């Protein structure tokens, strides 16, 4: 059971039950949809970009605790960041989830909030749950109209 608690930490359960920014901001000017056809999870990410910054962000969708918590945590962390900073956070989170690097320690900085998701790495079948909202964020930043799908994009 202890290892399950590493995956389902209180912060994750809290964010999944009461997701932050679970809404479509009225003045959103970028948005994208993402889905994982294998499990039916769907997420939509909405951004209000002003002067190159994420002035507001929200998301809607349905999915497992990991995907909902990851989306909720993501919106918390990228609000107020520049587009470049958001992209950089995506790269680092993606590497963290796919085991290319660990974000433990002082260098992690902003990603500290996301270390609660590091337990996901031990569950390879669940990594896509954690990264779906981030890929959808990137699609919104890149103004991709076709959305993203875990089964259509090798990087997901």
């Amino acid at each position: 059971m202890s290892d399950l608690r590493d995956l389902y930490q209180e912060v994750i359960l809290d964010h999944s039950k009461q997701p932050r920014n679970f809404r479509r901001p009225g003045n959103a000017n970028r948005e994208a949809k993402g889905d994982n056809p294998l499990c039916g999870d769907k997420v939509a990410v909405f951004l209000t970009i002003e002067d190159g910054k994420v002035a507001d962000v929200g998301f809607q969708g349905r999915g497992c605790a990991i995907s909902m918590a990851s989306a909720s945590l993501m919106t918390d962390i990228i609000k107020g960041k520049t587009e470049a900073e958001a992209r950089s956070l995506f790269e680092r989170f993606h590497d963290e989830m796919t085991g290319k690097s660990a974000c433990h320690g002082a260098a992690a900085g902003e990603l500290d909030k996301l270390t609660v998701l590091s337990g996901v790495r031990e569950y390879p079948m669940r990594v896509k749950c954690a990264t779906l909202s981030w890929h959808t964020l990137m699609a919104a930043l890149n103004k991709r109209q076709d959305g993203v799908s875990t089964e259509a994009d090798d990087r997901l």
Partner: protein
Amino acid sequence: MTVATRPLEATAPAANTPAFDLERVRGDFPILARKVHGQRLVFLDSAASAQKPRAVIDAVRHCYEAEYANVHRGVYWLSARATQGYEGARETVARFLNARDSAEIIFTRNATSAINLVANSFGNRFLRAGDEVVISWLEHHSNIVPWQMLRDRLGIVLRVVPINDAGEFLLGEYERLLSSRTKLVAVTHTSNALGTMTPIDEIIRLAHARGARALVDGSQAAPHRQVDVQALDCDFFVFTGHKVYGPSGIGVLYGKADLLRSMPPFEGGGDMIRTVTFEKTEYADIPNRFEAGTPPIAEAIGLAAAIDYVTALGLDRVEAHEQAVLTYATERLADVAGLRIVGTARKKASIVSFTLENAHPHDVGTILDRSGVAVRAGHHCAQPLMERFGIAGTARASFGLYNGFDDVDALVDGLRRVKEIFG
């Protein structure tokens, strides 16, 4: 169906009936001796793919170690031996389904490729724009998508028989959908996602009464009960080897001989011809006409071993055992607070789909896995059906002949852990 009246042995650790020695059966499956996350493997995903008894593993190994060569046309002893094994497997399948003639048994890659074969070959020969094919809401994607592809290519019309909230096939609605335009009814015998058994005899009878052909997707029926294609009088019956405890990579299409003979080949290549010149090719008779290229040889031999295994156990006894486990599972799961069983048909195979309040099926699956309990979570390749119930997916426990009451208990214990985490 005697499910409702069969006495429960709720306190027994396993469903041991005099006629069915569960412990001995489990001993036949080497994988069940292994541990997962330090726990006894409780395998509840046989509807996706069943585990293999030693008899099947040995048959495949023996084929490769002692009797393997390409089949047909080889003049040497080893090829003749492999051919005997492969064609013998066809006869075993014919007996298993009670087909009139082993030539009515076509080996394919799986049930999906069997349906695709019918969609293309039967479709090209007999279907025209405006003709109708009837399927149901219970279908697996493999019995939806091939017909949609045909619709887009030929302009046929697809009609879908609705179900009720219990997940039962609505015969009256079905009858209303049938018309003189109906050329084929392609319906599942047993739903993989809900376990519903359809009134397949009536479905076939009504199709024939309107002059339509009937294809039965028997993927989830063949592992659980005796199938008699002559009694059913179906025109096509498909199933897949790996769900009846055989190897993956082999499926079966049964078709009535006259009908198969009237159909053109689906794939062209070696082994399906009589003569080839660059001007013209004469096709072989059935079944070879539909088996282009080197077939799945060891897989067919493994499938025959699997059929011999379940036949020796007795499918009647297997069904009675599984129905007892299903009844026990249904009762125990009904007691779990917040659990909703999706699919409550009166006639079901040993499959229980459910949702749990506050916990997504994937989280349920991950947590159960840590207890050694393997269930499937998701839409089970039946997205329209999930939409019908307004859900994205379910967790699904499916019971095979090696599962007992103790496996149900392990599942319920595991669900308790899910509730500890998710409340």
